[in-house]
């Protein structure tokens, strides 16, 4: 047995019922004696049913075919009423035509509705396709953003790795030649141990910084945080001859935050500020501690951000840089939000931009956007 799709089976059932109805009405009209005018009247009016049903089920073409079938089948009755047993045959003809026309109009409307539904479904499918593609692109761009940040970091990392490596290879060379005094040999061994440890610490810190993970709040010294970030950005800043000045009270009380995430956020702001500032200019990182909040501002000497763009720069994919992906500040704002704080762009006194990060000092709970997870 051949399996028939459900939709096709129901279409066939509808067609059969319409045809049967037409046959039934034509048959009853033929069988009803002409003198029973009331019954004839009812039968004639019932003709509207198959036309309307055909119009709704199969559109105007269905209604037209049904009208043709009904006219064909009822021709004998109409002929008989006209010539043999006189009855209002012209009335019968007019009614058949009007009901047929109504069925065709209903069919046209049904066709239009069906067409619109089809269009909606097509648009929906297209939107779903675009949405999937967009999501893939976002993933790709996030990856690119990570790679760009990794590129800048690796320049600093390379610089940080070279010095200990030079010490290690120098000390190993002295030991290998075997001409050094006992005191020098001891010193060389000490240097080898110390510098290997330094490299290990450097890589551990770097991996912890580069690997994305959920926020983990812990007591953090805001000044330490800022100095660590400035050290990371130092390489890029020196290359552009931009000075980084830090105004932070080293005795400021500790705050609750995820230090790695806040470092990532601040590094992003600082690198942007360095890029925006002309050569031989300076960037200021200022930290103000209030009883319940910590405000960190990054001030540059660039062109500033236009008033209409100050909200939009935090939207994903909005960028004013030629090579930017527009995700850096969006990620930064997200981190601030997760900490129950906020990140804003305001105008600086000298025309440059000021990015102000406000964080609560005591975070009770941290929201993790996307997963709906609450981190105590």
């Amino acid at each position, binding site marked *: 047995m051949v399996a028939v799709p459900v939709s096709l089976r129901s279409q066939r059932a509808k067609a059969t019922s319409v045809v049967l109805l037409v046959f039934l009405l034509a048959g009853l009209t033929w069988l009803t004696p002409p003198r029973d005018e009331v019954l004839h009247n009812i039968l004639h009016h019932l003709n509207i049913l198959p036309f309307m049903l055909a119009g709704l089920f199969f559109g105007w073409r269905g209604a037209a075919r049904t009208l043709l079938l009904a006219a064909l089948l009822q021709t004998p009755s109409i002929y008989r009423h006209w010539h043999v047993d006189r009855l209002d045959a012209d009335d019968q003809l007019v009614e058949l035509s009007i009901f047929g026309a109504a069925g065709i109009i209903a069919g046209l409307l049904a066709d239009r509705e069906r067409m619109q539904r089809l269009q909606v479904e097509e648009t929906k499918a297209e939107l779903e396709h675009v949405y999937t593609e967009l999501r893939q692109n976002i993933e790709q761009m996030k990856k690119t953003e990570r790679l760009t940040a990794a590129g800048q970091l690796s320049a600093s990392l390379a*610089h940080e790795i070279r*010095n*200990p490596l*030079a*010490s290690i290879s*120098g*000390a190993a*060379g*002295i030991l290998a*030649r075997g*001409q*050094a005094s006992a005191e*020098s040999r001891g*010193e*060389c061994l000490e*240097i080898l141990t*110390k*510098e290997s440890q330094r490299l290990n610490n450097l890589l551990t810190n770097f991996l912890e910084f580069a690997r994305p993970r959920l926020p983990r709040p812990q007591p953090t010294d805001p000044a330490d945080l800022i100095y660590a970030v400035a050290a990371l950005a130092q390489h890029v800043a*020196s290359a552009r001859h931009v000075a980084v000045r830090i105004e932070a009270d080293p005795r400021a009380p500790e705050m609750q935050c995820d230090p790695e995430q806040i470092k990532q956020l601040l590094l992003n702001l600082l690198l942007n500020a360095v890029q925006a500032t002309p050569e031989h200019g300076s960037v200021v990182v200022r930290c103000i501690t209030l009883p319940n909040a910590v405000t960190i501002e990054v001030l540059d000497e660039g062109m500033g951000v236009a008033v209409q763009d100050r909200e939009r720069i935090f939207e994903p994919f909005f960028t004013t840089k030629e090579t930017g992906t527009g995700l850096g500040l969006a990620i930064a704002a997200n981190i601030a939000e997760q900490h129950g704080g906020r990140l804003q762009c305001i105008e600086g006194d000298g025309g440059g931009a000021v990015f102000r990060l406000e964080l609560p000092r005591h975070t009770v709970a941290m929201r993790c956007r996307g997963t709906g997870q609450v981190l105590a």
Partner: protein
Amino acid sequence: MKRNHILVVDDDSSLRRVMKMQLEEAGYAVSLASDGEEGWKLLRSLDPHLVITDLRMPTTGLQLLERVSHEACRRR
């Protein structure tokens, strides 16, 4: 015979010590400074034959080089 005198200026202590050992092994007298400022003072007082300096450090090597070339011009 008086040994040739080299001044090494670097902010990385391990690197400084290794260079001192290497240069002493090669037969030079070596003095050490940890930044450009200290390097300049030692340069004035010790008058070494050669200065080896790092560039990226507090009071940069470039500033030290500028001062050295000014001094050289003045002496001429």
